């Protein structure tokens, strides 16, 4: 039969948030195999399933709702949600599935970071953010700089009990985006201020249909 593409929406939290993107792909491939669900594999010498995370998840990232698409050689219904949840490790939960009849992409997203740092962290951070900061990026030996405000719609920094809570509203530009951890790192390097990440959440992801 012709393969069907499904979207799997899932949440990720402790402790499963500490695995890498590739581990996630492998974990879902294995889970589908355990359930005897026939995935569509690529042709060729080294066949692999077509599992595509619309946004790869960094190690440590938690989220109430993320999504991947997978090509399957059979019809799936809602029952698969429960079957998967019975075998997935703690911290991962499938929320719903839908057939992918259109193409979507991410337009923007909200991150929330909890960090441990000095009392006046926010003051310095706000100062840093006003100076049109840049993020250094090294890839294949080449160094490029990206302007934070090209990707950032807004942010908040406030002290909450023992921790500092940062919220970033980030937009995706031509398929690329910046991560809050990179902004924090750039700040820490320039201001020589230390901090410790306690938790990073991608609170909400907004999609748009591609025409």
């Amino acid at each position, binding site marked *: 039969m012709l393969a069907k593409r499904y979207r799997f929406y899932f949440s990720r939290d402790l*402790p499963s948030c*500490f*695995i890498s993107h590739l581990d996630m792909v492998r974990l879902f*491939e294995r889970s589908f*195999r355990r359930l005897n669900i026939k995935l569509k594999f690529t042709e060729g010498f080294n066949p692999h399933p077509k599992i595509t995370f619309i946004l790869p998840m960094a*190690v440590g990232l938690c989220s109430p709702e993320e999504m991947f698409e997978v090509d399957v050689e059979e019809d799936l219904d809602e029952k698969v949600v429960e079957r998967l949840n019975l075998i997935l490790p703690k911290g991962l939960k499938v929320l719903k599935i839908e057939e992918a009849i259109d193409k979507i992409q991410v337009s923007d997203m909200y991150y929330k970071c909890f960090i441990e740092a000095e009392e006046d962290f926010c003051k310095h951070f706000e100062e840093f953010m006003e100076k049109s900061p840049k993020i250094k990026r090294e890839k294949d030996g080449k160094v490029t700089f990206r302007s934070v405000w090209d990707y950032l719609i807004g942010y908040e920094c406030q002290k909450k009990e023992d921790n500092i809570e940062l919220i970033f509203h980030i937009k995706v530009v031509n398929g690329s985006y910046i991560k809050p951890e990179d902004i924090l790192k750039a700040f820490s390097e320039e201001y020589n201020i230390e901090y410790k990440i306690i938790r*990073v959440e991608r609170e909400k992801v907004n999609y748009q249909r591609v025409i």
Partner: protein
Amino acid sequence: MVVKDKLFKLLYSVEKPGRYIGNEINMVEKDPNKVDIRFAFCFPDIYEIGMSHLGLKILYHLLNKREDVYCERAFMPWIDMQEKMQKEGIKLFTLETFTTLDEFDIIGFSLSYEMSYTNVLKMIKLSGIPLESKNRPKGMPIVIAGGPCTYNPEPLWEFIDVFVIGEGEEVILEFVDLFKEYKFSEMSKEEFLLRCANIEGCYVPSFYEVKYNQDGTIKAIFPTTSQVPGKVKKRIIKDMDSVYFPTKMITPLIEVVHDRAVVEVFRGCGRGCRFCQAGVIYRPVRFRSMGKVIEYSKELIESTGCNELSLISLSTSDYPNIETLAKNILQFTEDKKVNISLPSLRLDSTSLELLKQIEKVRKPTLTFAPEAGTQKLRDVINKNIQEEDIYSTVKLAFERGFQNVKLYFMLGLPTETNEDIIGIYEIARNIRQIYSDLGLKKRVRITVSTSFFVPKPHTPFQWEPQDSIDEMKRKMKMLKEKLSKIKDVEYNWHDFYLSKLEAVLSRGDRRLSAVLKNALELGCQFDEWGEFFDFSKWQLAFEKANVDYKFYSDRRRDFDEILPWEMIDTGVSKEFLIKECKLAYEAKPTPSCFESCIGCGVATFKGGICVGKKV
């Protein structure tokens, strides 16, 4: 719970935090308050290595099958994590319940390689309990160890309460039963250990004493009480079909070294290579029936979802009807897109055909382990591999599109001459020539790797000296120089000092426990990982303990010298080892167990092919 909370705050600032979270597929969950015995299974290396180890998984599930036991796992944390743990005051913990090791009843180490000894000590230290057995009274964990290294347990004698010699599936349950009696009674630790020493396969070093001669050799090894046996006989599983095998096997969430489902097709090896310790200690060969292998393979794929199934043994080509087995397994793996791998396959035209059928996903690399460069030296070591077979297989493989050839050799084998070393070069050159003659367009890569011969206890070469470091260097340079003349050949050699230290620890005696303590204090750990290995620290550790390491590595021993491991009985007789050693010097091969019984002595165990049991 405190440990878990503290730990999870550290995970954003360490490398590969997935090592420390547990939570894997098929991990066993129990209420620790509802069991009688808490067992911490420890692997003295990082998670990715430990979780590639089949023995750990077998014993983990075997122990957890019992309702009265909860077996959890602990691995050596990487340096960055160790630093953070120390800063936060977190002791070494298990991945199931994040309980610190000092709260366990039993801590069990798996000893797979000597270079992990400092990690064993470090893990005990990180657990917050005293290093030495004698300083751990009743109420503190009992520390036990098993695995191939226990065939010479002596360098660790001070730290380990009980060594389990041989295969663990039966003896570990007997040990646990006894422990339960000990825990819930007034039995003293002394009494408990005494009773342990009477379980077959358990060696309790505190009941044995060693006396030395003036020249440093051993004068006598004897039990200090008549209540323990003079020799400790290894344990084996007689029947591979009735022994427990976990088919709902724990499967890591992060990528580990061997990331696959594994079924052991047989135990033991009948080849009798004279340098090989595994070939002696795992004797006799015991096959698992084809029906069982197929059944377990099916169940493992269902329970783990792995996309690779590995059929393992010490020499998989020796499994009768391996082709039929592979075909049967292919019937259900192909559809599920599961790849089969057969490590330890002797390569020839038949096995190449087999590989072609089953290993569809593999990168086309051919691996040969001739171990020695000339037929004469291969006869010395009893490695039954003919150069002509290598060449014909290589030719066939090149024609089929293989582009990578890997060759493994050993330098420093007994009787080795320069000619034998040049022989290694010649094999590489001939293979390169075969490639040129075929006129193929693609590039070829030939990798030659050499390790240095490490004489191992219980082998026919246990009396042999190891080359000095200068001699190792000379041989390596000579070979390097020669090989550099061949196009497309890459040469790798094993670290001289690591090989030296391995030789010292393998054949060491009780005096090395002081050296290990010094090494720990000097910061030695992860010695197997080249980046942390520092031989100068070890030299200092030897000096401080007044030990000349060359006494253990570079010296030829007499056949009548008492060896430190003589209280351990592998079933293979000393007479047989001496006979084999002499045959080596005459360059006379010995047939394999599959051809005829060679009378090594292990038949007394009445197992496997010794009693004519086939698949």
